[in-house]
């Protein structure tokens, strides 16, 4: 589940996929700083062909939030 999303997160933050879960956040992932956060946005937008609004971007506190916003943009994470 959510393989594509986890691949992107793992690449951007240079961590193992097994380290990622819904609760992963800037507190649990050391490399998740504001700059890498924006790189993640850029990667997600390009991969899923969507565009987040500013409020969506600053609202993200953990991976669960990312999934919620992706779903709102019609991205199916169950493939």
């Amino acid at each position, binding site marked *: 589940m959510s393989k594509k999303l986890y691949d992107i997160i793992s690449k951007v933050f*240079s961590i193992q996929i097994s380290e990622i879960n819904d609760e992963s956040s800037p507190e649990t992932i050391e490399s998740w700083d504001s700059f890498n956060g924006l*790189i993640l946005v*850029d990667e997600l937008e390009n991969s899923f062909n969507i565009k987040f609004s*500013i409020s969506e971007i600053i609202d993200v506190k953990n991976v669960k939030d990312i999934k919620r916003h992706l779903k709102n943009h019609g991205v199916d994470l169950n493939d």
Partner: protein
Amino acid sequence: MERKLSEYISLSQTIDVSKSSKKIKVGILSSFTINGLSETLTVKCSELDIQCKTYVAGYNQYNQEILDSKSKLYSFSPDITFLIIDIRTLLNKIFHHPYSISSSERKKIVNEKISELGNLILQFKKNCSSKLIISNFSLPSYSPGGLIETKSEFGFHDMINEINQGLSKIIKDESSVYVYNFNQFVSKFGEKNIFDYRQFFIGDIKIAFDYIPYLANDLMGYVKPMLGLNKKCIVLDLDNTLWGGIVGEDEFDGIELGQSSNGKAFVEFQKHLLSLWQQGIILAINSKNNFEDAIKVIKEHPDMILREEHFASLQINWNDKAQNLKAISEELNIGLGSIVYFDDDPVNQERIKQEIPEVLTVELPKDPSQYTDILMSLNDFNVLQKTDEDLKRGKMYSQQRQRSELEQSAKSIDDFLKQLNIKVKIKKADKFTIPRISQLTLKTNQFNLTTKRYQEEDINKFSSDNNMIVGCAQIEDKFGDSGITNAFIIEKNDKEWKIDTFLLSCRVIGRGIEDAIISYILKEAKNQGVEKIRADFIPTKKNNPAESFLPNYGFKKENEYWVYDLKDSIKTPSHLLLEVE
């Protein structure tokens, strides 16, 4: 294709540059968040075997870093520093409200901003020997003045243009400061792409992530010539590279050049190659063809832009292309690392990449309409300064080829030298010749008696010293002007002169020119009542072409020096004409 910023960032964590032979320290100062530039530069450097260390100043700290002589930037002691200030930061409130003030107030602000920038440059130079690359300011597409903007009295856009011109004026005579044309960068990729409002609002990012790698690519254009990695020569295939089709099969009238859409693409490509040649880039051909077929097109095809006179070497034969490339490098006496190779055939591209990795082999696609764009996006031809000789280099090399053709057809070496009609013009050191004299002392390795290296300031000092003579010689012959290719520096005493420096560029060796110039110096000395000339030969790994010059001319060894007694007769070669300015 340029890679994404995220890719550079992950690559930057894995590179190993501990074995790199070349090193560079880069300072990055900017008025906004420019994360990722340092990582991208580091990766791009590592791919050229350069160890790149960077110092990125804190957010918007450029003023403090430059003005404080004890700043971290200065203790890092960079070799090259990029200073990128954006127009919003520079103009502050006026950026949004330029028309809240009068045109004379706008003018006053612009002058203040120019002198602020001038002061930053001055302070930087005082504190640091690094090269400084300062970006100019992008002209926003929007103006609150709307349509009337272009009619405004010293309007918003005029302000920015004036600042850019002021900046260029300040650095024009600064040998270590350059303006990076950021405005041109933005117009190339588009303001709407470069400036992303979301990234700006969230992180004060003024160059969107996707474009940081392209910016880094432009900045690498400065790094390469600093480390001597700039390219000097373009080697070209012919069929489907300079024209469409295969001349051996399609014949003279069947190739695509000029008329058709494809034909126009080749003409455009050739025009850009010619413009590089006019800037001193050497062109050469490496092609598998019957020589007669190919040379007929080059000489006679009405739509050919590049002609025989533009090529320094014509390797048109059925030999292996790697072997031909090596032959070109030897013939022109330039390193394989200075060559860029264009060939449409992917098999040939691969072959050269494998066999001669030092050569930059361009990945030319099948579609000729892309050729020009690919040529123009290469950042490998930059030099940090240019003398007249550099601009003429392309021409000089092809004249050299014509000379060797004459040499091969002449009956004897004397016959060849006579036919060349060589003219040697002796010139004094002045503001026109001093940069070249310094360049010659810095670059000449082969025919150089003492290999002493002098900066422009040194030559300046010597030339105003009454006890010294600094001169040079410009060489011309029936094929053209080789420019200033000799320099000499002499220390004068009443009874004896000492030759401090005597050198000759390798492209004019072996034509009696060195003998003509030394005979001029000897006669001058004799006229001024000097008895002896003393000269020194300091051997290096490369200067053995100059080793036998002194004894062959008639200098006698006295202890460790070579001495010419001016009571002896002075011989002057008769095949050339000597002029003194």
